[in-house]
């Protein structure tokens, strides 16, 4: 009998809803077939059939058979239906069939099977709910992760764009700054040239003034000489010098104060020549300082370049100031002479402009271990400690607005470092500042000298 009805249970259309659903909603309605599996029931049903119950089935609320065992179509059999409750509602039926004579046994068996089905159903129901909650949570976490990932990608993209444009912007700003700095450095050069020009103009004006004045005086002297010569020439016209003429010329000689103006003229000429020589020297110093005739690079004597710089600053040196040149012989240093002079110029000018009475500026040069060491130390007011590390910054100035560009020492710094050198400042506020410069002397031609500012 059993072989006619192999035990494989028939699954109803129970899964129809679940497969349609993508979203797990906690509490979503379930049919009996979605919760209970035939494989869980078969052992019970088979045992029941083996113990003599002809047929056992589980139907869902639609009457679809979820699981059966035994022969459903016996002649004259009775059918017992017991409702199976799910969430309080009848979700299906346990159906037991048997012979009328053994009704009480069938009844007992139906009750037993119902209990078994309910027990299995309860535990399956919990398991399904837990699984679905778990799935809902997993779905939700996954969706949150996707969303987080999407947002991260979005923001990453934004940051990448930002980084790209940032780089471009940085380039643009850097270029702007570079140009601004170049402009300022140029202005600094113009400013120092202007300052130099003002001093030099004064220096040149002075001798020029007395040369012009002397020439005017000489001009008057010369007209008297001419008159005198004309008088003598007419007096000797006839070959003899009459007493009358002698008296005339003597009077004229006395009137023209020629006894005085003749030696004075010689003085005036000598003074004027001296003045002219001073102008010539100033111009020569300027030429030396500016190195107009020199090439971009030359081997220079640093001592001489410091002197040249001092020469053009003569007018800035107060009368009571003392410049002490403590030089030692130095090897040639290959550089742009104009640049190195500019570097010294800015340091020396700063010292001269401290306004200190009885200024003493000691300039020391030494050659030691492949380095030229130069120091400029003064007894001025010194540099306040809090700004010592800022004085080489561009735009940093302690001078009044408009008086300084804040570029002077920056230019010096750039020039010195462009030759691979270093510059540092030591200062004791109240007792002076000392700038120390170290310049590496090129061994042969192998050291690369960067283009100075």
């Amino acid at each position, binding site marked *: 009998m059993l072989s006619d009805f192999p035990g494989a249970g028939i699954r109803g259309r129970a899964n129809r809803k679940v497969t349609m659903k993508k979203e797990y909603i906690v509490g979503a*309605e379930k049919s009996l077939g979605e919760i209970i599996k035939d494989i869980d029931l078969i052992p019970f049903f088979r045992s029941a059939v083996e113990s003599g119950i002809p047929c056992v089935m589980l139907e869902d609320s639609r009457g679809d058979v979820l699981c059966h065992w035994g022969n459903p179509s016996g002649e004259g059999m009775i059918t017992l239906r017991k409702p199976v409750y799910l969430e309080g509602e009848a979700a299906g039926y346990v159906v037991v069939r048997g012979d009328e004579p053994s009704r009480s046994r069938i009844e007992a068996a139906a009750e037993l099977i119902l209990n078994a089905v309910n027990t299995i159903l309860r535990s399956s129901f919990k398991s399904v709910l*837990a699984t679905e909650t778990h799935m*809902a949570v997993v779905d939700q976490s996954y969706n949150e992760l996707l969303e987080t990932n999407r947002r991260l990608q979005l923001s990453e993209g934004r940051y990448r764009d930002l980084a790209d444009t940032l780089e471009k912007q940085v380039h643009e700003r850097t270029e702007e700054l570079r140009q601004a700095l170049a402009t300022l450095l140029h202005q600094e050069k113009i400013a120092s040239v202007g300052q130099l020009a003002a001093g030099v103009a004064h220096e040149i004006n002075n001798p020029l003034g007395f040369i012009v004045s002397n020439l005017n005086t000489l001009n008057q002297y010369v007209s008297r000489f001419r008159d005198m010569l004309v008088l003598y020439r007419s007096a000797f016209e006839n070959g003899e010098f009459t007493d009358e003429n002698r008296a005339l010329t003597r009077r004229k000689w006395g009137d023209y104060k020629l006894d005085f103006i003749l030696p004075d003229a010689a003085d005036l000429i000598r003074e004027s020549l001296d003045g002219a020589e001073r102008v010539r020297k100033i111009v020569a110093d300027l030429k030396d300082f500016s190195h107009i005739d020199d090439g971009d690079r030359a081997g220079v004597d640093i001592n001489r370049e410091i002197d040249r710089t001092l020469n053009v600053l003569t007018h800035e040196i107060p009368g009571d100031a003392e410049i002490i040149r403590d030089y030692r012989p130095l090897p040639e240093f290959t550089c742009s002479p104009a640049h190195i002079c500019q570097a010294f110029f800015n340091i020396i000018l700063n010292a001269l402009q401290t306004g200190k009475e009885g200024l003493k500026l000691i300039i020391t040069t030494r050659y030691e271990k492949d380095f030229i060491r130069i120091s400029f130390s003064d007894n001025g007011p010194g540099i306040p400690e809090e700004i010592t590390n800022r004085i080489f910054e561009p735009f940093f100035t302690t001078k009044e607005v408009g008086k300084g560009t804040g570029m002077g020492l920056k230019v010096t710094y750039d020039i010195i470092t462009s030759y691979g050198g270093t510059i540092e400042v030591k200062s004791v506020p109240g007792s002076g500042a000392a700038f120390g410069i170290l310049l590496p002397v090129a061994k042969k031609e192998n050291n690369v000298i960067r283009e100075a500012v």
Partner: protein
Amino acid sequence: MIEYDGIDNRMVLKLVYYGPALSGKTTNLLRLHDMVEQEGRGELTVLDTKDDRTIFFDLLPFFLTAPGGLKIKLKVFTVPGQVKHDATRKAVLQRADGVAFIADSQVSEETNNFESFRNLEDNLGFVGLDIEKIPLVVQFNKRDLGNIVAEDDIRRVWEQTGIPVFMSSAITGTGVMETFRELVKQTYDHIDRRYGLMEKHGLDKTAFVGKLTLPSP
């Protein structure tokens, strides 16, 4: 709403008991289960608890049939209150039709109540529900304990929100039915506006509330 099936003429609603850990959400459902007439409800399914703490949820189903034949099933859930189960709370809260917030009256729990309520606001927003519109009642549980926040203070704070507040002691059953009844009333109004419970199905509020809260003899 979990489901509305116009062909089968069936509606499945979801109410959620929310609140901080150990505030008595499960106890509320246990009492409710005992108090309500057996015919109108199913069994309480307590799903996977550990050390008396709910880690998934509890489920208590109710049933009624409208005069017009609409079958209404109302599933009441609790959520796990512990902070770490936030994902489960979000999952349970999805498509809720009403929320009962169960607060713990003990003074020491004030911060937890506050955090949990804020969490409710956040999670309602997360699942696309509006705390201003969803039926909502608040229950201050454990009134039987000492060192609890005074009722006057609670009412003063909550009055301005317009949310109905109930004092309860779920362990003895006090306030449990009142809380549920108010939530069910609000839920009726909410559903009636959209689905015409009275107009289309002939189900009025009194019948709806009466059926769901019919006391067991």
